[in-house]
């Protein structure tokens, strides 16, 4: 069974513990307006115009999952300290988890730490497969109001809540919150997040400003990027304090 990959990136320091290699998979069920990897949203191959080299290329290729193994463990010597390893990201990697299963098994058999970056708004059946192999879940917290989550992101918040409680009872969880004034940092959403964190244990919450690094990617795939207002450091710090005050381990990430 072939998986559809967009990129393999070595030496990633923000996507799980230790030093990691991240496998980016194509296709996502959500449509977050701030998405940092717009080239991975569509499962279909994506035409990409590289401004730097002036060349067109196609993002995405199909490969037998097991054939990825040698490539992604090239840095295995770097995984030794502090639980480094492989992170599956995307897009939404759980959408291809069935096809990934033989690879996940092989990684696990070889004691390679596996993390997954997921929105977790997918069928619970897929989450259960991941639970067999994945050591750490990095789960997004985005827009928690049911209607907004559906209307803005095309997500299913009930499914999300159900999956979060399933995962957080079994595996270490890191929550990630992209910060935008327009969506995630509205007062209403902030309160929902605080309530949510009170009820769902985690190792850590990482918060970060949505970054504009993706703007060239949007241009390259011919999509419009939404303009976001600047998020003040003070606002980030206030939110950080709010989370800290409920006794949750929180970290501000800078890319």
């Amino acid at each position, binding site marked *: 069974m072939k998986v559809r990959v967009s990129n393999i*990136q070595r030496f990633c320091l923000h996507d799980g513990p230790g030093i990691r290699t991240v496998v980016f998979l194509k296709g996502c069920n959500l449509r977050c307006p701030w998405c940092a990897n717009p080239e991975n949203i569509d499962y279909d191959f994506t035409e990409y115009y590289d401004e730097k080299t002036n060349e067109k290329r196609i993002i995405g290729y199909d490969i037998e999952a097991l054939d990825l193994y040698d490539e992604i463990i090239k*840095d295995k010597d*770097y995984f030794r300290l502090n639980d480094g390893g492989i992170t599956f990201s995307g897009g939404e990697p759980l959408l291809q988890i069935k096809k990934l299963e033989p690879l996940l098994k092989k990684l696990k058999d070889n004691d390679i730490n596996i993390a997954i970056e997921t929105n977790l708004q997918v069928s619970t059946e897929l989450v259960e497969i991941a639970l067999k192999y994945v050591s750490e879940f990095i789960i997004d917290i985005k827009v928690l109001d049911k209607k907004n989550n559906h209307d803005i992101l095309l997500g299913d918040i009930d499914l999300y809540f159900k999956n979060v409680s399933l995962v957080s009872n079994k595996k270490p969880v890191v929550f990630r919150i992209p910060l935008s004034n327009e969506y995630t940092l509205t007062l209403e959403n902030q309160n929902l997040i605080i309530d949510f964190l009170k009820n769902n244990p985690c190792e850590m919450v990482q918060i970060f400003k949505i970054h504009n690094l993706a703007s060239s990617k949007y241009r390259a795939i011919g999509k419009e990027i939404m303009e976001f207002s600047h998020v003040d450091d003070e606002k980030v710090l206030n939110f950080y304090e709010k989370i800290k005050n409920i006794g949750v381990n929180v970290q501000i990430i800078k890319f």
Partner: protein
Amino acid sequence: MRKIKDLVLKYTSKTRLAHVILVFRYHRKYKNIFKTFVFGVKSLFLFYAPSGRLSKGEQAKKLLSKVKINISDSDRFIYNIDVFKTMHRNGRMIDNISIDYSRVLNESLLDMKKRISKLKKSSYLDDELLTVDAIYTYLDREILAIRHSNRSDKEKIIKYLENIKNGYPKSFEEAIQRILFFNQLLWQSGHGLMGLGELDRILEKYYLNDIKSKKITRESAKNMICDMLHILHKLYWWKSNVLLGDTGQIIVLGGMTHDKKYFCNDLTYLFIEAVKEVQLPDPKVLLKVSKDVPRDLMKLSLDSIKTGIGCPLFSNDEVIIPKLIEFGYDEKDVYDYVTSACWEPLIASKSIDQNNIDSIVFIHPLTRMLETEDLSKINNFKKFMGKYNEYLEEYLINFTNEINQIIWEKSPVLSLFTDGCDKKSVDIGDGGAIYNNYGLTGVSLGNTVNSIYNIKKIVFDDKKYTLEEFNDFRKNNFVGYDDLKSELKNQPVRFGCDDDEIITLTNEITSYADKIISKISNRLGGKFKFGFSAPTYIIKSGNEAASFDGRCDGEAFGVHISSDKSSLAYTELIQFASKLDYSGHRFNGNVIDFMIVPSFIENNFDKMVDFLMLSIGLGFFQMQMNVVSSDTLIKAKANPKDYEGLIVRVWGFSAYFNELPLAYKDLLIERALKNEGKS
């Protein structure tokens, strides 16, 4: 008449060159024609070198009795160099080495004299005796000047200097002063790029004694080290070789020991703390590392690197020590290796090892072959490589032949501190040292690998063009073929990538060079060695025609072991470098050169320490980091006044960005942009 003859001799020898270089160096720093003119005129009166007809010992006597001595009232240490006076020179001055300063701490002038007096009569002996006498005179003159100075601590300093004659240092401060005295003597005698050696080992006992007796504290010791760094830096405009900052004042710290443990002490930390604190581009620090290096030492090193000063450079003993033994250095010596001005290993006070004589330009024989051979007859890749090897062999033979024409100027001063010379009664310049090897640096290896890889893919595998057609594009500097040039430049697989084919090709080229080099001796009876990183990536590229890596006529070569691939993972480059073959003669400095954005280290500090620790085990040879952002460099280029203190790593040294020639500034900006994925 005699004076006129001397003058003629002076100005027809290389001494004249030394005078010209002095004025050039002054202008390089101050960039003011009027000031340079005044300096030039002044130098006509003040410039002095003893007559070349005198023996070297007599010259030393003349020189050291004429050197002008200025005693600073404010500096803690006495360090006095008269830039207008030097030794006469016909041959090439020995430079780019360190002596083992523990010798001058453990041996007084009287001891030296006694040691030499036991030698059989020879001109070598005469020169050595005269030189020791000259040092006595020099010391006395300096002591007298101190006596006449306004220094409040003159009695203490005079005692330190008197002790050089027939005593030994009794404190940390005195030991530093003594090292500085002999270091100044070497510079004054015309030896450039003088390293400082393993100061943490050498100074340990003095430091510990003083700490124990509460004579000093850790903090006051650090202040002394800072003062030492400041005073060594003072004349950097004059000490700098090719570019400002390139002084070769390298301090070597830490390292593996005979029993394979890791050595470091409080001074290892103090020296790194001090270089971080003084924020000067020079002197610089090289830290020898092994798998057992303490994590907190790596953290401190990264903290220093993070400031952008470019040091310490890491030298991996896990890889280097076995290569030194394999090459033929005595196992007793190798754990104390130091390096030449950049990073080329040598054994202090036992070798002349001139490790930076010149650079092998790997692309040169390839270009020559493409311009000379009937390319229609080269119809497969095997034949192609066979031909390249033929040209590489011819090039290396001619190149080393030329190098073997170099005559080294005798140096009784250096001989005084070098093992082997007494035993043979032969000056270091004539091959008196125990080790007499020559080191070549290597440049454009990456350009060559990428060129050959592209030729293989496009001509022999894909058969897109014939070799002749392909070569026509190159000969025309790719004019009108921008797409092809871009394709060549942007091959996803290239030098620096963790790719089996690239690694094999790189090792094939260097193995062949090693085979040839290993058959050649130098004129002192030593061997040649070479490395893959060199200071000459701009200096040597100017006359080299376009190459198949998409490089245009005269464009700069790749820098050391680095990749021009945008956003290449640091781990990938380390994996690549760790798989290169450094055996045989291939250990004359092999440095990975990273560009890193300051915020990247700041935001990922602990993981970067993990990265460094794990990389040592993987087996890189040496590594340095240039911590700077393209944004800062671009602004600094446009508004130099706002960035006067901005330091960058250039080759094996750091420099003020503002003081670099334009070509170096632009290359740094280009590399920073690539690293950040912006070009």
